[in-house]
């Protein structure tokens, strides 16, 4: 039987490009199709990438890639009721993560792939597909092609899976709404700050972020879709209140939005089926453990593995080898480690109530008004009690995350 390519990769984002690079390195002939006019045209990320996975593919990535700034400061800001605010910053000059802007980054990454012979077809939209006994035919806006296997790297909405009948569920998704603003933080050029913000998405399950770029700042919120559905605030308003609440100056340069997979290790959708392997967001790969949200390194990691796995499958291995390889890699092992924290974070108390109780307690600590000051524990117990929360439950929940 004739094939136009060994494997079609749907989507030229981080997962798709990584898969194409590793497929070419394995001696395969992949074709990547991308709906945007260039890689990154339709991509939005909060904008912080842990670069270990990319480094294993491109060792000198720090010199070559258009990364924004290394993250050298980790800040947490908790906004509570009554204008109270708790924040702390941890500084460490390691270069394990960088802020990135995807329009620029993905374009560079795609050109790196094109350098080694990957063909990416832009402005190409997957309209349908037919599964056959020994292959799969893709119907695209620029004509049909027949391939042996397909890698679904189409992002969180998983175009291949949806064409084959899978539906998305609100409880497995977060909505990221982001603005790039012209504000530039006063920091040395080789330093950047990542701020996690809690408490400015009042009434909605979610959080916020602020990342320092080279000469812009990325700010945004991530909101559980199901809490938006049942809430009373419009997604479009949350980000504006958030920006106003942060008090950052500067012109808004771009307004964007994207869905974020929020499955967790225990609820992952199928990673492979029929002749399809899913990578990155399309496979639901995302880690959220209260300290970090990671998706990009998982997309790269799973993409690289998928490219290798396809070669093994063509050589006779069963498709399940893909999942086995993922389990042995950081991709699924890190997801599994984060699972407890992920579940704990789904506790509604995390959004509003714990923060308020904590600030209440700190307020009791810092307020010197002539009355006897309680100890910190006493203050915590009292404020949790006042807020109708169970302190020991809270400690257990928090313990799961830590």
């Amino acid at each position, binding site marked *: 039987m004739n094939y136009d390519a060994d494997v079609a990769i749907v989507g030229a984002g981080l997962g798709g490009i990584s898969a194409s690079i590793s497929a070419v390195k394995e001696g395969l002939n992949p074709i990547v199709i991308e709906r945007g*006019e260039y890689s990154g045209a339709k991509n939005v990320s909060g904008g912080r990438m842990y670069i270990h996975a990319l480094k294993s593919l491109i060792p000198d990535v720090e010199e070559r890639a258009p990364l924004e700034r290394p993250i050298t400061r980790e800040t947490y800001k908790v906004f509570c009721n009554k204008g109270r605010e708790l924040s702390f910053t941890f500084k460490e000059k390691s270069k394990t993560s960088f802020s990135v802007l995807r329009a620029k980054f993905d374009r560079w990454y795609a050109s790196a792939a094109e350098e080694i012979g990957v063909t990416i*077809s832009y402005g190409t939209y997957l309209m349908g597909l037919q599964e056959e006994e020994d292959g799969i035919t893709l119907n695209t806006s620029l004509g049909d092609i027949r391939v042996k296997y397909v890698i679904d790297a189409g992002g969180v909405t998983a175009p291949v899976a949806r064409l084959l009948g899978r539906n998305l569920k609100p409880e497995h998704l977060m909505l990221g709404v982001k603005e790039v603003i012209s504000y530039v933080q006063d920091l040395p050029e080789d330093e950047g700050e990542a701020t996690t913000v809690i408490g400015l998405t009042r009434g909605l399950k979610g959080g916020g972020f602020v990342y320092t770029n080279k000469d812009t700042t990325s700010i945004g919120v991530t909101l559980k879709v199901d809490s938006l559905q049942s809430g009373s605030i419009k997604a479009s308003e949350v980000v504006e209140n958030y920006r106003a609440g942060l008090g950052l100056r500067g012109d808004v340069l771009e307004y964007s939005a994207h869905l974020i997979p929020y499955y967790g290790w225990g609820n992952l959708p199928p990673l492979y089926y029929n002749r399809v392997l899913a990578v990155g967001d399309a496979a639901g790969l995302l880690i959220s453990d209260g300290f970090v949200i990671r998706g990009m390194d998982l997309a790269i990691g799973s993409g690289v593995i998928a490219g290798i796995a396809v070669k093994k499958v063509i050589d006779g291995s069963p498709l399940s080898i893909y999942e086995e390889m993922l389990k042995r890699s950081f991709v699924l092992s890190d997801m599994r480690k984060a699972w407890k924290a992920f579940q704990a974070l789904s506790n509604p108390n995390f959004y509003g109530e714990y923060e308020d109780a904590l600030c209440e307690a700190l307020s009791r600590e810092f307020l010197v008004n002539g009355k006897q000051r309680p100890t910190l524990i006493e203050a915590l117990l009292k404020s949790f009690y006042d807020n109708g929360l169970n302190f020991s439950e809270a400690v257990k929940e928090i313990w799961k995350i830590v």
Partner: protein
Amino acid sequence: MTLNILVAFKIVPDETLIKISGDKVDLNVPVKISTYDKNAIEEGLELREKYGGKVIGISVGVNDRKTIREALAMGLDEVISITPKTYADALATAKLISEEAKGYDLLIFGESSTDGGDSAVGPMVGEILGYPVITYVRRVEIQDGFLVAERNLTPEVEEVKAKLPCVISVTGEANTPRIPTLKQIMESGKKKVVAKEVEIASSSRLVNLTPYFVPRKKVIIEGKLEEQVQKVVEILRGNL
């Protein structure tokens, strides 16, 4: 007769994606084949389909693999990519193209590029090579070693004839550039690209680039049609 055609195309920043922040202009944005240069490529391909021969592309500027592949996918037989080490103005670009342009029957350019838009490189190449220069062509035919073309010089339309070899520039109305199929895109990776880096001096210099922006009131008038009309009538009264 068969025709040997050289088509020049420029790789330019997509002007719709240029980033402007305050008084800064960021041109490090995705690149594309300059709009009317796609018409030049299409014209070359249509002439090849009609008369036979070869269509070679030439591009002076950034050697962007993605964009060059798009030009090849449209149907060019081969591309020569010349990257100057320093800024090359229109004249410097014309000199570089002229060096590669000998031996062709026809040289095709787009009417202007979407970056600088001097509309100069084509006529300059013609002058350097001593060929007839026919700009703003919207229709072209080959008759026994001669080229007959219709030029749109708004408000004039001129029909002219010149002996090959010659240089033409085509307008956007000359044709509709084709969109390659996925299979053509896959094939394009196998075609030949000759890439060179060169040194060339320019006699002009870009001093600076600033955003060009006239501030406006940006008032939105919504509501019932009668009310909208009333408001606009009042605005017009105050300004005429």
